[in-house]
């Protein structure tokens, strides 16, 4: 009977492995031949992008920084790689991929403490978009630095695409459309309520050592490659006074590597005007255009001075 049990389990395991391999190959094909959407965008950032100015960060980055405004102001090509719910782990991975091909002149990094260096949700959540690039160095080492067991998990071809199947199918069938906004994803809605989600307190959460080390490496490598790195913090609706202290880590990092840090998190010309926001942590198009113009002007003035 033992033989029967183990034979059946081996047969089931072999069937799953075979199907996993075949399905994984199919999904790899969909990813490689995506015509539109995020799948195409991620592939573009990793393998095609050659903008002079790269803007990176979380959803606050993709919603708050208009590349067109920066192009007009700085006279350089620009692309926004901001991604919802993502922080330094994923952005560092993309940075490593595109800097294998070329070196941008400027990187503007919109800092989101909760995603970039404060303790919070487990770091595994930042791996989802890196997994499809596992076989490209050094994405594998970044993934393994977060979770060593990923080496075994990656033996499954389907696991690499976990949670992306609908996106892959959609992006494969939807025809190509040029991304005229260059990664910028403005929202036209205005805030319908007057409610602020209090941001985390750095003094209570403490630092996440892994993400903090990636911030450090990111700053160091930009300096070594001669890329002008600029840290920014865009406005947060009704940000409390303690919010500024959340950026102490960035201030220290800026001093260490002589990197400018432009802080507008508590900027009173934005944070009390709900017409500029569509929710507590995200500005709408109106707010984003106003902020982009201001920050582009400040960066230009800074570059002119140096």
């Amino acid at each position: 009977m033992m033989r029967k049990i183990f034979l059946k389990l081996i047969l089931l395991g072999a069937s799953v492995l075979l199907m996993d391999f075949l399905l994984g190959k199919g999904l790899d094909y969909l990813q490689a031949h995506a015509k539109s959407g995020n799948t195409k965008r991620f592939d573009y950032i990793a393998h095609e992008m050659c903008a002079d100015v790269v803007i990176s960060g979380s959803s606050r980055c993709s919603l708050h920084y208009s590349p067109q405004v920066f192009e007009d102001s700085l006279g350089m090509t620009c692309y926004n790689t901001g991604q919802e719910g993502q922080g330094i782990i994923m952005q560092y991975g993309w940075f490593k991929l595109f800097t294998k091909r070329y070196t941008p002149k400027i990187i503007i990094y919109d800092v989101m403490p909760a995603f970039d260096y404060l303790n919070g949700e487990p770091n595994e959540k930042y791996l989802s978009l890196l997994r499809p690039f596992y076989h490209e160095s050094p994405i594998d080492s970044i993934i393994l630095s977060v979770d060593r067991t990923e080496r075994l998990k990656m033996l499954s071809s389907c696991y690499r695409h976990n949670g992306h199947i609908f996106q892959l199918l959609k992006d494969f069938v939807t025809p190509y459309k040029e991304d005229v906004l260059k990664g910028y994803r403005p929202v036209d809605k205005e805030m319908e309520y007057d409610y602020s989600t209090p941001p985390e307190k750095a003094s209570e959460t403490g630092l996440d050592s892994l993400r903090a080390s990636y911030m450090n490496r990111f700053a160091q490598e930009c300096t070594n490659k001669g890329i002008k790195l600029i840290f920014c913090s865009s406005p947060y609706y009704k940000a409390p006074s303690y919010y500024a202290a959340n950026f102490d880590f960035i201030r220290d990092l800026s001093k260490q590597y002589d990197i400018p840090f432009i802080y507008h998190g508590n900027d009173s010309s934005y944070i009390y005007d709900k017409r500029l926001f569509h929710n507590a942590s995200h500005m709408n198009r109106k707010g984003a255009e106003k902020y982009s113009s201001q920050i582009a002007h400040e960066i230009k003035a800074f570059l002119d001075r140096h």
Partner: protein
Amino acid sequence: MIFNSFQFIWVFPIIFFSYYCLTYLFKHSALQPRYSNLLLLVVSYALYLQWNPVHTLVLLWVTLVTYLFAILIEKRQAYSKQKYLITFGIVLALLPLFIYKYYDFLLNSITELCGRYGIEIGLAGMNWSLPLGISFFSFQAVGYLFEVYKNREKAERNLVNYMLFVSFFPQISSGPISKSSELLPQIRNRRPLDFEKMTEGFRQLLLGLFLKLMIANHLGLYVDTIYSTYEIHSGTTCLLASICYSFQLYADFAGYSLMAIGVGQIMGFQLPTNFNHPYRAYSVSDFWKRWHITLTRWLTTYVYIPLGGSRCSSIKCYKNILITFLVSGIWHGANWTFIFWGLLHGCILVVERMLKLKEKSKNVIKNAVRVFITFMLVNFLWILFRMPSISDAALFIKKILTSPGRLELVDNTTTIYIAISLLLIVLYEIGMKSLNPFKSSYRIIRWSSYVVCLLAILLLGVLDTSQFIYVNF
């Protein structure tokens, strides 16, 4: 060990293989249960130690106290001495549960109350983390003590057997809460290898994994988003989130129970069923016969019946129901929301008893309406279960009732996942047994469904090793 963790994928096959080698090697020996029990005990304690070494002392304390007191109770024939021993034994066994789970809550409540009258209490809370499964193993051990006291069970003299009864790894963190008469005989006796039982165990494990990773976790993503910022969402959105939470909780807990039962079956044990399509209940009384069955059974046997049960005056019976549900609320968590939740369930049961509601009507439409009303009542009470405070729960319910607004979904992908999850769980709840591919008489369909199920988990499951909700209780 969390069943949905990566650790389970590699640790369980090792446990399984060792267990079966041992069972196979000693299949003709009377020593078979002794060796396999020893192995299971080592595994159970090793996994608990890995969770938190200090908390293992709590597990040991509860085990040894109930073990010794059961023997003492059995030795003392005089009823008065037995009563003294059972009281003392229960107090000692539940002491860690009280200290870890309720001390801070009680202290905070007293401090707050005294603060209102200008009295300051200088005592500080302990803020200790809760030992894994403390509510479950404490209740299981106390249940055993009560059975010995009532002379329905002989005191277990074999310490290894008893330690395994309290710490058996599949059920320690979230049940099911077994009765000693169910589990101890299985521990004592030989457990022959049973292919059918094992296959069924793997099916239950796979189904449980599917419920947790494919349904509960997907619904949880939407529920967490809406509940954490309910102030800014419309009433309709809050209503949808509350319905999603009802199904998330069900898929999460039923998923865990199925996995525990499945792992138990693979090891040759038959653990009690914990769920029987609760959202098909015709009344809230019926719901409690279908939801967390082993807890309801525990409360009925060791709280409700000793209080007098229903064999007394109506008023006393109503009081007994309210006390039982108060205990249920307190058991679920040290927060006024749980206490209020338990009492409200008790009140509804009292009203149902007053109205003398029958289990089921012959009229299909009437039955459907009753199922719907029961679901909505339970659904609204789950809001108290999910919210951090009664005032938050009240505001959430007020929002649903007074400002419906338009339905807000997250992004398209999440909406697809929510729709699929709800559809699957409703189909599961309706219980279309004839459509269950795991039970098909065609081998090809059964095998294909196992492969598809595993691939679906790999491709679509939320594999973030998030904890099971009931582990927090």
